[in-house]
């Protein structure tokens, strides 16, 4: 995206796995959003966003996630996140309220399993 961050994406079963590496801030969040939007196809059940290798994350990243989730919602696709418990990223997700809206897992396999099992997020319950 720029020298601070890069995105890797792969297909797993019926889902897409996207990992954000490096630092996400106001300088690259728009570019990352565009990249994510182009990375998923309509065939996927959902998207797993892996933030375990994200070195820096702030409100521009949160805004990015919320916009992306909104886009997925409109296609009735599900967003699932992966973040290391106790990390600053996890805290930011908690503070911003994203954690309450979307499922978050400790690792990608748990996240993929959840998507495959068709578990729906407790959207709107909170």
């Amino acid at each position, binding site marked *: 995206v*720029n020298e*601070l961050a890069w995105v890797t994406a792969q297909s797993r079963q019926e889902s897409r796995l996207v990992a954000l590496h490096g*630092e996400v*801030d*106001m*300088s690259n969040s728009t570019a990352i959003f565009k990249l994510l939007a182009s990375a998923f196809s309509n065939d996927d059940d959902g998207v797993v966003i892996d933030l375990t290798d994200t070195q*820096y*994350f*702030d*409100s*521009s990243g*949160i*805004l990015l996630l919320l916009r992306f989730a909104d886009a997925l919602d409109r296609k009735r696709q599900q967003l699932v996140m992966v973040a290391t418990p106790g990390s*600053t990223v996890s*805290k*930011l997700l*908690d*503070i*911003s309220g994203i954690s309450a809206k979307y499922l978050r897992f400790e690792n990608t396999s748990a996240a993929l399993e959840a998507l495959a099992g068709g578990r729906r997020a407790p959207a709107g319950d909170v």
Partner: protein
Amino acid sequence: MKMRNGLPGKILVVDDDAAGREALHRVLTRAGHTVLHAADIASAWPQIGTVDLAIIDVNLPDGNGLDFTRSLRADLRYAALAILQISALAVGPTDHADGLDSGADAYLVHPIPSIVLNSTVGALLRLRRAEKSLSERDRDLRSALDAGGVTVARIDFQTQAIDATEGLMALFGTERASAVPLAYMDTYVHSDDRAAVHEALRNLKLGRDEETEFRVLTPRRGLRWILSRASPLRDNDGVVGGVTTTLVDITSRRTLQGQLAAIEKVLERTNAALEFEELAKRALPEIRDAWNVDIVALCLQSDDGRMELSASHGDEVELPAPIPLNLTTGLLSRVMQTGEAKAEHSAQLSAQDLSFFRTEAVSAAAAPVLTADGQLVGVIAVAACTHREFNAESLQLLAVLGARLGGPLRRVQASAEQRALVVALQEQLLPQRTVNPSSVQLAVRYIAGSSHLDIGGDWYDCIELASGEAILLVGDVTGKGAKAAVVMGRIRSFTQALAGRASGPADLLSGLNQLLYRDDLADMATLCCVWLSADRNLARLTLAGHPPPLLIVPGVESVPATVTFLDAVPCLPLGAGSATRYEEAKVVLPSDWTLLLYTDGLVEKRRQNLDVGLGHLSRHASEASTRSLGELADAVVRGCSDSIGQHDDIALLVARRHTAALLQLRIPNQRGAIAGLRRELRRWAERFAPNIDTEALLVCACEAASNSIQHACGLGNETVEVTAEIDQDDAIVTVRDSGRWRNRTSDGHGLRLIGTMTKTHTISSDDDGTTVTMVFDSKKVEV
């Protein structure tokens, strides 16, 4: 003439060999003695009463020297005479023993080296003199005669017998009805008192009245003290033929007198004691000796009203006091209940009551310990493992002791309370937390002295003036205790009041001195005042009777840190004189520095050169110079206290200017600049704010900076200024732009993060721009 053995005496040499007499004469006169001569026993007798020592040859023309010695020993007139037996012919060990058996004090065989003769004669004379001085006792017990039990005895020098009266027999507790040979007297008289008795007899024979106190060992009644007032009996020709004497049993008086003296001694010692352990250590042995017991125990009420064994003396095992006691039955509880002194013996003594003793008590007495206002606070108990009578007077004196012991005990407790009070007062009067003047970090420590006599009066303070100058102060009020603490509080207030109007440290101290002098606080105060310029590059220093501050300049790369005491003209302490002139020294400071201001408790030890203490301080400060400010302060206090041992009050103020610890960045108003800001902040935080959650600090700082970049508009808003600094345990980050935020609530996420992840934050906007100030503390933000 040199006297080898110090004591010149009068010596009679009895020897038939003239050459031998001459030899002894020469040696003895050279040693300073007066020497008389006798060639036989007959010519010795008339002279023997006038000398201190007789040197008697074994073989004499008119008899055996051993027999002569025996007859001398049998005569009480010569009881105090020292006898040295000498012999040339008899050389076997049996002869030696015979000589001593005859009553001689020493036995030497020719040839006698003069050094042996001199040392033997000297030793014998010293022995006699020591016995004499023992007999010179105080005679202020005339009232004892009123005590009753007076009996009369007569001694007949002709028959060498004591006429036994019934009273005397009763006194001695014997049943012997006939006269007692005078020679038997020594078997009754206590060995320590024999010399005195014999001397009295000698004086009586010379026709003088004699008054003597001595101890006798009676078969039935044990050791008794006797007061004898004797007069010589003369026959019609005026020759002394005997003695008549009145004898009084003064045993109880003597014992009580000893106990009274012990009470005085105990109270004298306890009054000087500062702590309970010291008091117990001084008082209990005195009590044990005076009451002639084996163990002394002091039981006192603890704060919660329970009885404890607080101290004991004389028991087999040193008890780790205090031991809680459960006093329900027995001697101690009866004393507690009745408030009266009591004595009990084995049959009555409750095992439970004195069970804390390892030694089994056969006789015990106890009395209540009372305060001056009669409040019962404990029990003092004495116990013996053999039978001991505690008569009424002895018990009464134990009660007197108990009644007077409570006062000193209370005082000791009160001094512990006073210590706590002064510490509390002192701490109240010191600033709880100093506010860092801009670009200077502070750490302060106050450590109360070891004993209450050492607390109070030490202080520190930091005042930042409107001009931006800052004043660092550490002072010490002479005198200790609550008064010193209060005076210290006043000096601090005076200083605060005067600081704003003073032009510098000398001016400030002159003003303070005037106030102190005028107020006649009757106290002097020392003070170290460091006046920092607004840019922190210059210090003006005034020392009023105070040790100099220590300056640490950090090392650069391979150059080590330097530690120096700042020089200033030493001026008189505050309050020492109204006309004292205070002078200031100017010190140019480097960009980074650490200053230590301290009171003498940190460096001064009694009887130790101050330089030694300053050396310790310098070394400990140097070793810890790279540590954080709080760690440096702790290391210096710990290091110096260990070097000094027991310490006085300590006040310490450490100030540091660390320009590197102040991060100042200007970033261009571009989105891409945020990453660089993050790197700078991360580097700074890891070095200077290791206890702060770095990630939270980065997120918040970048949120604020992002906001500025995203939203600031207006003229001259090309850059965003970010500063980070350390304030005690907190990190403070400010982000400032020169525009206005168009819409602060654009998405709300940024502010929400700042609100949640900082300790406090403020956003202020004015015409020049918007400033976000965020404070982070070491506690991690838990969400």
